[in-house]
């Protein structure tokens, strides 16, 4: 019973953190350009980033 009292809230808190992070990324527009994000890693940047 004691372990449940610890594990349940823990699971819920960690789950909510994940959910919160997802909502944050959704609001920040990280899902606006899925194709672009997939391709961007292939761009060879020459010199320092602007």
């Amino acid at each position: 019973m004691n372990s449940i009292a610890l594990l349940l809230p823990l699971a819920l808190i960690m789950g909510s953190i994940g959910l919160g992070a997802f909502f944050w990324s959704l609001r920040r527009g990280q899902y606006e350009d899925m194709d672009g994000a997939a391709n961007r890693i292939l761009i060879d940047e020459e010199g320092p980033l602007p």
Partner: protein
Amino acid sequence: MNAHLQTGRQSQPSEDLLETILVVPGMHCAGCMGKVEGALRAIEGVASARVNLTARQVRVSHAGSVTTPRIVAALSGAGFASQPREDDDAPPRSAARALFAPLAVAAFAAMNVMQMSVGVWNGADGATREMFHLLSALIAVPAIVYSGMPFFSSAWSAVRNWRTNMDVPITIGVTLATALSLFETFSGGHTAWFDGVLMLLFFLLAGRTLDAMMRDRARAGVDALMRQAAPGALVVGRSGTIEWLAARDLVPGMVMRIAAGERLAADGTISAGASRFDRSLLTGESAAIPATQGDEVLAGTLNLDAPVDVKVSRAGKGTALAEIARVMEAAGQSRSAYVRIADRASKLYAPAVHALALVSGIAWLVMGAGWYQSLVIAISVLIITCPCAIGLAVPVAQVVASGALMKQGVMVKDATALERMAQVTRLLIDKTGTLTLGRPVPDPRALDALSPKSAAIALSLASNSSHPLSRALAEALAQRGVTAVTLEDITEIAGHGMSAHHAGRKVALRRPDASQSMATALDITGEPVRLITFADALRPDCAAAIARLKTMGIEASILSGDNAAAVATISRDTGLTAQCAASPADKQDAIARLQAAGERVLMAGDGLNDGPALAAAHASIAPGSASDVGRSASDMVFLGESLLALPRAVAASRRTMAVVRQNFVLAIGYNLLAVPLAMAGYLTPLMAAAAMSSSSVIVVANSLRLARAAR
């Protein structure tokens, strides 16, 4: 001048930075993104540039000193055509994005409730079970209300109009199961169904999100194509100044200067100059029409020969072009009455399921069970028959099939397109631009006759002109591996041709002295004049495509606006029957006649004149090279030149619908197995969860077989 040119949407994020959004249809890979962003950042005064590849747009944040033409010039220097985005073509809001949040909430809640349900199934008892149920309720109820909203609102709007759709049984099942579970929770009962309800919502939302993502992607591709046509014209001011105005800023009375090879942005009369015009986009007529001072010319026609000044008589909504768009809108209304297969299925399924639940409830009551027990059994029947897998049956199959088609260059624009395409029995196909390539192609025999030296000179001359024939010649020669030579003092005389000097000899690519057909003459001093004729060629694989359609039971015939002679040639080459000189209204009538006779017509067309026919037909397809109107009116757009896209699209659609029907049988069959258990009162939440997830997995797996449907 800048005030007119900066039509891109601009806002001022800070005092001195402006933001301009440009549409760059040519971007398609990481290299393109890098080049576009690099070219823009190299401009003095540009703070940042960020590409959105999905929307084929770039957002530039820059100082006021950087003008839009400067940005466009930088991009064209990097090899990309671009134009400022107009306010009214902001991409429509993504349908999938609105579903991400409900999907995430349903997934989170389903997982957390499931871990407690597993505890209960494993024998948690007394206070522990009650606490688990209470915690589940605390998580599940808000999550169900939030994630279920897309279904609740859709069901409500259907019920309000006395209709039913798939969302009505879903809503009833979800609501009753939640209510029963709440009652169980607060009365200290044994069973709660929160996990099943949340899992149901999660699966359904997953199917719906996939569906929306597929449509967003197809629409983004089509939108990018649509923005390629530059709507606007150079306008000559009173004092002789020339400025570029967007089509919507043109007003009657203005004088447009139309270069050779340019399309008219408004209707008008020629005030200076004479040229020939290609009206094939508007009427399907392939022969160029000469027009001189005082003649009327229409928006959408292509100026072939010489620059002319055109006084605008009607612009925007008043043009002949806009009139066709209005006819098209009216023609499309019959199609919007089409009922999706999922909704047709639910029309049968929902009443059957609800009757079954009612009958089992009443039967138990009659046999002497209590009110509570009868109600529980009726609700458990509803839960087990909740159309979880049925909600996935259609969208997953369509997503997989559309993905397969997109890989083959066919974009599915409309969600019901696959369903309608699968039913077609008859094909009507436009000639110019659909059956043929829609552009002049030089006669290969004439090109074979050229010596390598003459071919190189012809390529060099042609590549310096923007005349449609020159462009076609340059493209054909370049494809044959001809390389250009250097020429001196190149001059272009409008309406006559190109001339230059090469190695001391005068060379010219000019209008032939006497020729009936479309042709150009290559005139090299000291050599005989070579005549190169042009014709609109049939698309490759034309015969194979028509033969394949025939084996599928689809008879094809030509429906063209072109003159009888031109249609007869093509008709002979393809062996198809043809109707020629058909006006847009004639085409619409031809379709209406066939559909009244019980045929389901597939219309393939590209021009403005096909717009009403494309909208009126049971299903329609347009080539990627089609006019804006053609592309927006059709259900599918195929890229590339091969006409094999047509049989491929029909075959893939038929296979999709076969899989959808299998999915229905699998999903309903699976639920039917569990229904007797529910009616006998033996159904447990564990069984419901197992039945729901396994039937969903089976349906998804069956749909994935469509990944190779578009071969």
